[in-house]
Every structure is written in structure tokens, then in C-alpha cells.
């Protein structure tokens, strides 16, 4: 199966490329960065800026062949390092260009990278907490920042192309993604700064498990547009979230009473049920 991965040079993208190449996918990696030196064998690369419509065309018609699926990861991954209009424009232009060309070329499947920030809590300025826990894919969003808004728009864009062309579309919502070299510092924070993970509701995912979820999404047939929170089974916390939450806010504490044991504030059961996916790494493996 021939797949295009946009945003392939990002930290998540690199793991996704590795995962797919290891499972016999023919991968065309695309990113705005120059070709890296350490591509897995057999992976092709094209340097392209997905905010330009012509580049999106070039990527999706690379060497004259359409891919069977597109995994779109290219984006600015948070609103902390770029002006707000740049964050929003980069993300929604690249998402739209990809969606439009997927439709125009009749590419049958698109996996879009959304985020736990589809929900909109990490970068909000007016505090709010979910109306129930654990949050699942039905919980409404409240974007206050350009990154969260761009993720909401991205999911609407893939629904549009499904409505127009019948494209099979999936949105992946990663939480706080932990890369292998980050684990020592993350474990330290679990012990020393347990409340610092509150805005993500103490959810997290090892990048290797996340990459596996992208592959499972490729391998699972869906009918409607389906979004999935891809989070680990346990909370990024030593103590139960129900005990930590009241220390953050009374409102959150009330909602967190429904969480038991090591349950995080985000529910992964839809991904487990529909994608047949299981997280295999826990923060406890790295203590």
C-alpha cells in the first residue's frame, strides 16, 4: 500500500514513517524541511510546503502515481512559538490544500492529525473544565486559541471531503506526546509537579504507541468521519486523578469523582474498540 505522510520530519512524523516502513508500506515522506539523512530504507522523500496548493498537488502526484492513502501531520504543533495568525493560517491552509487534492485526485483515504486541543484546554486563557469526565469523542469543544481552532477546522475539512467525495476519513487526536528521550524528565515531573498535567487531564501517549495507532487507522475501514483520542490507559500521575483534581480547582474536582484508580481524564475506549489498538507503554515502565 502506497501512502504519503506529510509532516514526516516532525518528531511524530519520523516515528510514523518508521512504523509504516517496518510494516511493508511504501512510504512517500513529505515535509518543509530538507531531506533528512536517516530515512528508513525504501522511503522516498519530497520537500514541500503544504500551505502552497501547488506543493500539495506535487506531493500527492509524486512520480506520477497517486497514493492509496494520505496521513496528514504537517502543521505548527502549538501556538507558543509563532504569531497567532501564522499558526492559524499555516494549519488551515495546509489542511485545506491536502483535503482538496485528496478529493480532486480521488484518493480513497485520509488520516488527519487533530489533537486533544480540538477540545481546547492547553492554551486557553479563560479557565474552563469539561462538563464530564472522562472526556470522550462526544464532548463539545471550546477553542480560545488559534491552534485549537485550527484543529476544529481541520476535522470539519475532512468531513467536507467525505461529504463531497465519499473519502474515508479519520481524525487522530493525540494528547501530550512523549518521545523516548523525554521520559526521565517526564517521570520527574510526575513525582515533583503532578498538577502540571492538569490541562491535558493527565493523559499522555508514548510516540511509538501513537505511530501504531496511525497504522491501525490505515488498516481499519470506517464509514462516517471518526475521531479518536489516542491516549495511554493510565493517568500521568502517581495518585488517582480523583485525588489530584480538587487541588487544581473545585469544578474539576467535582467532575473527577467519576474517575477511578489510575484512570486518566480522557477515554481511549473508542480507539481500542474501533481500531483494535492497544497502548503498550506506561510512564511506570520508565521509573
Amino acid at each position, binding site marked *: 500500500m502506497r501512502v504519503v505522510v506529510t509532516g514526516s520530519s516532525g518528531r511524530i512524523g519520523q516515528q510514523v514513517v518508521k512504523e509504516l516502513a517496518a510494516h511493508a508500506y511504501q512510504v512517500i515522506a513529505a515535509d518543509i524541511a530538507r531531506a533528512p539523512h536517516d530515512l528508513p530504507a525504501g522511503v522516498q522523500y519530497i520537500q514541500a510546503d503544504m500551505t502552497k496548493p501547488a506543493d500539495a498537488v506535487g506531493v500527492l502526484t509524486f512520480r506520477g502515481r497517486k497514493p492509496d492513502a494520505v496521513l496528514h501531520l504537517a502543521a505548527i504543533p502549538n501556538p507558543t512559538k509563532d504569531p497567532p495568525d501564522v499558526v492559524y493560517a499555516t494549519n488551515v491552509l495546509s489542511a485545506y490544500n491536502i483535503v482538496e487534492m485528496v478529493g480532486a485526485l480521488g484518493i480513497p483515504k485520509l488520516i488527519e492529525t487533530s489533537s486533544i486541543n480540538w477540545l481546547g484546554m492547553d492554551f486557553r486563557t479563560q479557565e474552563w473544565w469539561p462538563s464530564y469526565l472522562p472526556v470522550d469523542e462526544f464532548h463539545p469543544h471550546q477553542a480560545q486559541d488559534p491552534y485549537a481552532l485550527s484543529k476544529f477546522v481541520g476535522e*470539519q475539512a475532512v468531513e467536507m471531503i467525505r461529504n463531497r467525495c465519499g473519502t474515508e476519513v479519520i481524525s487522530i487526536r493525540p494528547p501530550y506526546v512523549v518521545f523516548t528521550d523525554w521520559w526521565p524528565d517526564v517521570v520527574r515531573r510526575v513525582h515533583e509537579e503532578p498538577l502540571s498535567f492538569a490541562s491535558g487531564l493527565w493523559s499522555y501517549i508514548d510516540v511509538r504507541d501513537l505511530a501504531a495507532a496511525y497504522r491501525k487507522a490505515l488498516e481499519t475501514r470506517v464509514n462516517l468521519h471518526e475521531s479518536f483520542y489516542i491516549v495511554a490507559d493510565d493517568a500521568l500521575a502517581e495518585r488517582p486523578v480523583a485525588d489530584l483534581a480538587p487541588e487544581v480547582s473545585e469544578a474539576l474536582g467535582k467532575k473527577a469523582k467519576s474517575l477511578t484508580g489510575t484512570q486518566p481524564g480522557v477515554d481511549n475506549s473508542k480507539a481500542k474498540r474501533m481500531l483494535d489498538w492497544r497502548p503498550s507503554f506506561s510512564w511506570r515502565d520508565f521509573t
Partner: protein
Amino acid sequence: MRIVVTGGSGIVGGFVVRNLVAAGHDVMNVTRRPPRDPVPGAGFVQVDTTEMGQVVGALKFRGKIADAVIHLAALPNVWPVAASLPTEVWRINALSVYNVAEACAQLGIGKLVETSSVNVHQYMRSGGTIAPPRWPMDETTPNWVINAYGLSKIAGEATARMLHARTGAQAISIRPALVIAPDEYAMRISQMRGDRPKTWLSWSYSDAEDLAEAYRLAIEKDDLGCEALYIVNDDAFTDAPIETCIMQAYRDAGPLDIGVKGHAADIANAKAKAMLGWKPRHSWHDYEKR
């Protein structure tokens, strides 16, 4: 009030600017081309609303930050501008409303009215195979879009919600249906009745003068919060009974829940009437040749 109107040189924009100036507001038209018929008393500054810096600069006029913004600047879904690349429609429409909302947040502007559309409900473009859950359609009907224009309106409404959530600013999204100016009725009526009758996304329509009035009410009233409002007439723009139109258009969509009949429009305007105290004053029948 000191009101910036983006897109004040367009068809709807012209009516809005005229309505606001007549009501005594201090209006600045902010857009990329000057108006063909400038409204005396309204200012103009040439701006590309896809450029954040230009938008921030334009929301201050004569040295002070505007009190309110009405955002109309976009590529509309009308000929000849409708013949634009989808990527351009998307870029201009999505980025313009974002820049305006972000500028409002940064400058502390407390009121925004932005322009959405019946195009958040493009069910008619499903070939009549997918129907809304019920008629009349209203602001609770689920969105369903197939193109850049409809998507840009969904994005615009979400952008208005972002502004309100972040700063508490009053953020209203106005949804016109087919907009008809006084001098366009004859042409639209003959399109509707022609040998190959034209169909639009719905049988609702928005009189341009009544629409401009709704914009003024939405910017003048306080405590409206964050809402989308359909601004459409009471009657349908069709000769046949509305239930017949719906059943014919959606005959391949399975069971239909039709709660409108006769001359009633297929989109409800009750929310706008209740929230704004707005009422349509012109009907297409007023413009029919006797």
C-alpha cells in the same frame, strides 16, 4: 458608535454602510477595493484582510480603536466571484475572519458581527440524497458542507465563538440565504420561474435592505452573547407550496420530517426575531410585475 465594516464595497456591504450612516454611526469601510457608490459620511481605507498587520491597523481609525466591527469581507458565492479557485475562496475567507477576530481580541473590541451563510447547510448539493433532520431548518440544524465556501462559513462561526470564549466579546454570526437587492428581484424572479428554473440551497431568501437592518440591530444591541442567526424572510421564494418543493428536491433521501407548508419559508427566522427584535419588511411579492 465607531464601526468598522470590512467588505463595505460589496453588495450587502453597501446596504449595511448606508443603513449605519443613516442611523448616525461613524463608519469606516475597510476592504481591498473602493466602493463604486461611496456613501457620503463613510470613510474608506484599502486593506487586504488576509494580512494581519493591515487588519490591526485598520481597526483603529482617526487615532482611536473602533467600538465594533461588522465583517463582510470575503469572496461571496455569487457570480463572477464564485468562479474562483476553491483554495483561494478558502484562503481569503478563512484567514480574513480569523484576522478580524484576533485583532478584536488584541485591541479589546467588544462587539463583532461576522457573516456566515445558509451555505453551512449545503444539503441540496447532496443530489437530494441527504436531508436535514427536519424542516424548518434553523440554527440547530447540523452543518453539512461540500465545498470551500461552506467550510469557510463553518470556520467563521467557530472563529466568532473563539473570540467570545477568549474575551467575552459579543460575537454574532449572521446567516443570510439568497440575498436579493431591490434592483435584483426582477432577474431572480425570472431565474426562479424560467424554462430551466434555478434552484438554490433553500427556498428562503434575504432582502438586502432587511438584512442590513439586522446587521445594525446586531451591532447596536447589548448582551447578545455568542449566537448564529438566520436572517431570512417569512415567505418562501417559490410559487409552489413549500412542502411540494421539499418533497420533490429530497425524494431520494428517505423519510422526511416536514414541519412547514404553503408559503412559509423552509428556514425559520424566529431566533433573529426574538433576539434582535428584527422583522422582514419587504417580500419578493412586492417586486413582482403585475
